[in-house]
């Protein structure tokens, strides 16, 4: 597959790579921000079930990723949290959502980075003496190896990769270079590098050469497909209405 040929695809073409059941999908986003919302819609419409979702936290109630749990499509979440949405909490407490790999956020992103950058894993001092307290986390996956390096005890955390990655960026050129906008990069750029087949949902598609090389957040060779999502205006409006509804924004007189 060419590292820099035209990667523009329809949702159907790009997401066809996802198996109907028991897929492993890594997804970008931070709570409700920078989520590939149209790809999520597609997963729901096409009833892609039994998903193992590798994602920083479950998302924002009533929004994007939360709809995946609502529709019972996710069987396991590998994340730093399970309670940021009502929907994931529901599935979790009913025993429909397995949470075995549960990490501090810094550990989660370093495991993804180890997968992205071909490292053997990550050495993480955070949580030693807490997450490995015997019995405290019986149901959590417990094989927590601890080694000492220069006097510092740290967990040996294996890398995280996935066959399919869904990320959100502001814009892309046809070759697959991605540019992120303001605070919406979050973990998207790292997820994009940690998957064998990365699909980027963007608000705008621009000719090659438009994105200044210094502003490329994910270089084209890391991306296998680019799909058009909602426009920037639509996104801004959706968020503004949501914030007004939940009182995070004061309506202007």
């Amino acid at each position, binding site marked *: 597959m060419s590292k820099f040929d035209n990667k523009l695809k329809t949702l159907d073409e790009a997401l066809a790579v996802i198996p109907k059941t028991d897929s492993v999908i890594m997804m970008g986003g931070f*709570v409700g921000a920078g989520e590939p919302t149209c790809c999520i819609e597609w997963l729901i419409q096409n009833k892609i079930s039994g998903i193992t979702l590798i994602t920083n*936290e479950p998302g924002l109630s009533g929004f994007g990723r939360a709809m995946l749990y609502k529709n019972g499509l996710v069987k396991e979440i590998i994340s730093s949290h399970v309670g940021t949405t009502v929907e994931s909490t529901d599935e979790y407490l009913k025993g429909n959502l397995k949470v075995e790999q549960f990490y501090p956020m*810094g550990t989660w992103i370093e495991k993804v980075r180890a997968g992205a950058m071909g490292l053997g894993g990550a050495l993480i001092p955070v*949580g030693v003496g807490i997450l490995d307290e015997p019995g405290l986390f019986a149901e959590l996956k417990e094989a927590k190896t601890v080694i000492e390096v220069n006097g510092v005890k740290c967990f040996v955390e294996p890398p995280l990769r996935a066959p399919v990655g869904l990320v959100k960026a502001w814009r892309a050129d046809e070759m697959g270079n991605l540019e992120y906008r303001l605070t919406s990069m979050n973990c998207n750029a*790292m997820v994009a590098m940690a998957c064998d087949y990365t699909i980027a949902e963007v608000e705008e598609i621009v000719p090659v050469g438009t994105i200044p090389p210094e502003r490329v957040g994910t270089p084209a060779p890391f991306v296998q497909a680019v799909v058009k999502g909602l426009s*920037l205006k639509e996104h801004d409006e959706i*968020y503004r209405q949501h914030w007004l509804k939940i009182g995070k*924004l004061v309506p202007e007189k």
Partner: protein
Amino acid sequence: MDARVLIAKRAAMELQNGQLVNLGFGMPTQASNYLPDGVKVMFHAENGVFGVGPKPTASEAKADMTNAGSEPITLAPGAAIMDLATSLGAMRTGLLDVTILGALEVDQLGNIANWAVDRNGKWWPGIGGAMDLCYGTKKVIACLMHADKSGESKIMKKCTLPLTGKGCVSTIITDKAVFEVGDKVLILKEHAPGVTLDEIKRLTDADFIVAETFGEMKLD
């Protein structure tokens, strides 16, 4: 004065000029409204911002300008945006001077528990970035109501819930009192207006000594 406002106001007094600060969700976020005069700090947002500014107006708000709770933000002059790994690295490596965190329980060893309660035999809701914060940040200030709804003390000898940080808390601020964390014992420094030492004793499970300077919270 509303208990939560009191706590937020008193917590804000701990902040000093030039510090890089992370305010946890809920009560601590209010502290940004009560910065003492002349104190200028830079606020960190976990999703990758140094220099979070005041809330935007509806027309200013943007889908791509949010904090760690996906709330709309503006950026202060000199702000910087970074990816998640760098933001969490800054927390882990101790670049932040102080963090004000909510807590379910704190104890006299400076332990803090704020990420999990037992629901249907499962730990819920989740760790997020709090453990990284407690690990790396030089000064951890815990803010919580002194006792739970049934009057049980949250200022304990030893936390019962899964910990977020071990021996990391330096200051505990509640609706009743302010403690410093000493060597395996708390030091009672201040009481909230109208709160007596006896009431604090009744409501505090942890061992504590009373500082000579013990007196009323000075909420300018």
